[in-house]
């Protein structure tokens, strides 16, 4: 890949009209390029050529200025000279590589230095490509097209990864969080609660006689009911802190950070009433439904010792839920974690 400098072979002049025409025929991915060179003539010439090649070009006259520009607006490609007054190309390259930037910066070093030692030093500093000044401008553009391609692929992968991550913690039917999300974030909520001495409450919710609803109205209507349940629940929660997760089937958990057992009971009753008062319209008609709720909360000075005891919290909420179910459903029952270990502590309301 090393660019060979051939001073004896005259390079045919770069025909920009050809380049522009070619690029109009091919749609190119947008690519932001930062050109760093301390010589204004070099900056002007290269910027003209690169803009004609459909790069979005920013220019900087020094390494320090380049870093400031990059911090203001990230760029995909960094095209830098080697020898500059305040900071040379390899030093700039090392700083860019050391920074934890969200997206990868493809670095191309453009320099008069044409010996192997410098090439190796440039690459060791973190450059992806090394091109000697005075070579073919078409070759430089071709190498920058490689940079455009690679950074576009990297961007696509990053977007896909982000989406995969989102999907991995999202329930596909209702769009709310799933069990994986609960198991990842509930321990964090508990840790935060312990660290700041704030209470934390959990509601375990289950739609009463959901199987019968499915049997009577069909699974599609059952699915629509689950979606309606989620919408109604989310309307009753604080957007900024409370959250909901579907564990599977018709089982849901509501997590209420900074909420005491009194507050959690209030929310649970509010939810229960909202479900009763608002039937869900499905393709099979309007479906009235009720929900059983189990409530538990850890107070600021609660004795849960570590995050592994998260199971105690969930079990306490479930115990409250089973108590509500046992009493015929459409109820709220509270259970405390401490009393749970003693086999007591369910309070029906």
């Amino acid at each position, binding site marked *: 890949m090393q660019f060979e400098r051939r*001073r004896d072979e*005259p*390079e045919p*002049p*770069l*025909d*920009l*009209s050809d380049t522009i025409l070619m690029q109009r025929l091919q749609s190119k991915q947008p690519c932001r390029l930062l050109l760093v060179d*301390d*010589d*204004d*003539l*070099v*900056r*002007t*010439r*290269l*910027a*003209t*050529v690169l803009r*004609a090649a459909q790069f979005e*070009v*920013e*220019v*900087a*006259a020094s390494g320090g*200025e380049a870093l400031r520009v990059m911090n203001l607006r990230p760029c995909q490609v960094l095209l830098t*000279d080697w*020898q500059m007054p305040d900071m040379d190309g390899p030093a700039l390259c090392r700083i860019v590589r050391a920074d934890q930037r969200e997206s990868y910066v493809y670095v191309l070093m453009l*320099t*008069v230095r044409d010996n192997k030692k410098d090439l190796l030093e440039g690459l060791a500093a973190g450059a992806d490509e090394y091109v000697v*000044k*005075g*070579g073919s*401008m078409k070759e430089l553009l071709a190498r920058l097209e490689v940079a455009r391609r690679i950074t576009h692929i990297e961007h696509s992968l990053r977007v896909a990864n982000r989406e995969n991550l989102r999907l991995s913690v999202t329930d596909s039917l209702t769009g709310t969080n799933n069990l994986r999300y609960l198991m990842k974030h509930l321990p964090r909520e508990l840790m935060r609660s312990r660290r700041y001495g704030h209470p934390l409450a959990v509601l375990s919710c289950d739609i009463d006689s959901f199987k019968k609803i499915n049997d009577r109205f069909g699974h599609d209507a059952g699915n629509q009911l689950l979606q309606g349940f989620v919408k109604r629940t989310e309307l009753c929660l604080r957007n900024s802190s409370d959250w909901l997760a579907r564990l599977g089937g018709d089982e849901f958990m509501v997590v209420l950070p900074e909420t005491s057992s009194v507050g959690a009971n209030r929310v649970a009753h509010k939810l229960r009433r909202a479900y009763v008062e608002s039937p869900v319209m499905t393709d099979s008609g309007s479906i009235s439904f009720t929900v059983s709720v189990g409530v538990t909360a850890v107070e600021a000075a609660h004795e849960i010792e570590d995050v592994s005891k998260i199971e105690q919290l969930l079990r306490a909420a479930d115990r409250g839920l089973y108590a509500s179910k046992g009493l015929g459903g459409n109820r709220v029952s509270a259970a405390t974690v401490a009393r749970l270990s003693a086999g007591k502590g369910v309070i029906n309301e």
Partner: protein
Amino acid sequence: MNSHGQHRAGSPAIRDDGLRDDGLEELRATFFGRLKGERQLLLNLGAVLAQGKMDRAPVLAELRNRAHRLSGTAAVLDLREVAALAHVLELAVEGRAVADRAITPRAENSDRVMCAALQAFIKVIDGLSGSSRKLPIQARIATSRRSRRILSS
């Protein structure tokens, strides 16, 4: 910093050979003007080195940096001959600096090479005219011969 302001307004002119100029000739003309300005500076540095009265290292570094920068700019502006000869000067100065540090028997030779490179480059600057894309033919031939001779010495 943005270079938009450095662009020539309007669409690029069409050159005699049918290609778009896109401001290159203008940049070359500016560069030639800069070279003329550099001429005296280079000569002064050469004179300081010839006198041998002061610490040569910073003078050699200054000369090398100037040659390096001129070579890079000329290369991007597709002035291959100027770029080549400036690069030869840079290498010669670097060789002289190495010789200074090593105090080798080749020190005299490297001095001669550096002086020849400097003279050759000055002559090329003197031969430059206007905003021509190419150097005058005599300068090109001389450049080619000189750089070969300097590099082989």
